[in-house]
């Protein structure tokens, strides 16, 4: 995509363009609606930029190949939907534990199980957070528009590379298949970050020693094939990368990979606030639902209701700081519309507590939440 100027792009296409702009060089995936266009476009585009595309035998293999390619130094990504996202979970956990940078796109569709393949949902927001076993933090970004599918994919790579962690880009079918006119940022405007490579003597390299690099809590990552001869395992390990049975060493490792993200909750939080100043009713929304919420909030304002939209682009780590500020503003209500049976309403409630009612507004089975419905909820709350 060399030419500047406006383009008509689909969310899934914008994700691929963003990934390539961020330096994507390896994609492995398995076709599944509504994410398939991402694989198809990668198959077409990657060889042109010297990258590689592989259609693996399943989603488990795709996630595994992505980890392997990343360890060998390539920026790597996979994309999937519902059932495939479930299959990837074990190896996403591997990437967490072994601290392998990579981006996982999940274009959400209705579940459980095969559900409604072509219909939108937001039912995987907790799975994205907790889908793989064991204690861990997770970075999950969620675009609401085609342009954001591009910019947040770039961000996802930047975060994953600098924090040595998998990052999940959680779209929904609407954003994935939406076509919008966008002006993509020029390469000059784009900030692209790369992982830190080790600097010292190869023999002394410790792949999990966090004090050796520039980024606090994040060890530099050597590439396979550069002569470091290091070990990577999904077993709990010491700074040298080898398995440990010592509770002390183990706890240090588990806490560090949790802490490296948890301690950065604030800087990772991407939020758009619309009319926060004098607001009394708040709407917390994300993904395509946030588009309806925006309409509703604007309409409420037009009708003289002091409503505010909190549009979360970072779902996880949860934007606690933002919600804490909202709590201090003596809100009358926080409304949480979601295309699920109420998943993010719980973390919102945990921060807001008894300060005001936290009102869920839910729809499943592929129906969008309409602006009128959110507006009605706002009106009822004031």
């Amino acid at each position, binding site marked *: 995509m*060399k030419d500047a100027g406006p383009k008509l792009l689909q969310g899934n296409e914008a994700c691929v363009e963003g990934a390539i702009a961020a330096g994507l*060089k*390896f994609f*492995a995936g398995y076709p599944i609606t509504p994410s398939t266009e991402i694989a198809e476009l990668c198959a077409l585009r990657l*060889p*042109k*930029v*010297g990258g*590689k595309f*592989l259609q*693996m*035998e*399943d989603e*488990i*293999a*795709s996630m*595994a*190949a*992505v*980890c*392997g*390619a*990343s*360890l*060998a*130094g*390539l920026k*790597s990504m996979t994309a999937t939907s519902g059932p495939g996202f479930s299959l990837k979970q*074990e*190896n996403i956990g*591997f990437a967490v534990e072994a601290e392998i940078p990579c981006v996982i796109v999940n274009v959400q569709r209705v579940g459980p199980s095969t559900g409604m393949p072509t219909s939108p949902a937001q039912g995987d927001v907790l799975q994205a957070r907790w889908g793989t076993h064991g204690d861990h933090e997770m970075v999950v970004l969620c675009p609401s528009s085609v342009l954001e599918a591009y910019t947040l994919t770039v961000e996802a790579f930047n975060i994953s590379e600098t924090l040595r962690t998998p990052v999940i880009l959680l779209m929904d079918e609407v954003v994935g298949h939406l076509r919008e006119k966008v002006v993509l940022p020029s390469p000059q405007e784009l900030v692209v970050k790369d992982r830190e490579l080790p600097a010292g003597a190869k023999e002394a390299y410790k792949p999990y020693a966090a004090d050796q690099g520039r980024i606090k809590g994040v060890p530099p990552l050597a*590439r*396979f*094939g*550069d*002569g*470091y*001869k*290091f*070990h*990577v*395992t*999904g*077993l709990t390990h010491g700074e040298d990368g*080898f*398995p440990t049975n010592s509770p002390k060493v183990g706890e240090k490792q588990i806490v560090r990979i949790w802490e490296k993200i948890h301690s950065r909750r604030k800087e990772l939080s991407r939020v758009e606030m619309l009319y926060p100043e004098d607001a009394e009713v708040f709407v917390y929304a994300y993904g395509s639902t946030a588009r309806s919420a925006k309409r509703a909030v604007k309409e409420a304002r037009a009708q003289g209701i002091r409503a505010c939209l909190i549009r979360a682009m970072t779902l996880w780590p949860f934007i606690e700081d933002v919600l804490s500020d909202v709590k201090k503003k003596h809100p009358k209500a926080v409304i949480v519309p979601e295309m699920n049976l109420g998943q993010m309403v719980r973390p919102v409630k945990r921060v807001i507590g008894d300060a005001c009612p936290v009102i869920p507004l839910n729809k499943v089975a592929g129906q969008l939440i309409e602006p009128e419905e959110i507006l009605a909820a706002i009106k009822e709350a004031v």
Partner: protein
Amino acid sequence: MALSFEKYLRTQKMPHIWCPGCGHGIVTQAIIRAIDELGLNTEKIAIVSGIGCSSRAPGYLNFDTLHTTHGRAIAFATGIKMARPELKVIVITGDGDAAAIGGNHLIHAARRNIGLTVVCFDNNIYGMTSGQYSPLTPVGSFASTAPYGMLERPFDLCELVVGAGGTFAARSTTYHARHLVNVIKEALTHNGFSFVDALSQCPTYYGRRNKLRTPLDMMNWFRDHAVPVSTWEKMPPEEREGKFPIGVIKKVDAPEFSEVYSGLIEKVRERGDE
């Protein structure tokens, strides 16, 4: 000159986890000898494994080593090979790892003919989890999950790989230690997917339950039942009963996948229709 293992081993990580009499050390040694005799650059070798007793071997080997999830080593290795085709990528796996949970990856890597050398430490049992049956456990053998004897029919792993389009398949055993080294050397020099079924003994969880009390009993069993491929091919079916062939079972040339893909990149970029 005797081989100095120091260069290839992470001796500081010893003692290893394997039981006395386990065959996995012999197969590991054979891999080291093969690498040494071929004079391969140790900085350009990546060794990848899944989960199991066998899959612990990479932890003791001084290369870039990756110990992955159960059954998925070949898929991880595929990513490495695609990212850096210049590397020799060796997969160490068990019979459960390769043929049960990872069977799908095995056949697809064979079909693609991606340049990996897969060495299956085949003790026909789940060692790590203490003796459940695997897809390689012979009919009638006892395992903790086959207390009345194994009912299912086992795989022939070399035939499986060949059937999937594999371009190199070979078998050897821990009894035939020198032969095993030679077979692995051939596998490592094959340009494409290569598979070695390395029969190994698990005296703890297989032998004791199956009247092969000592490791030596198990190795003697290999000696008495293995037949060189050349002989095997001439044997009538009734003589083959209870025996198995060792040696290179299949070797044909076909384009190696990571090279094929690099060729595509060149072609597409020459056209320059970015």
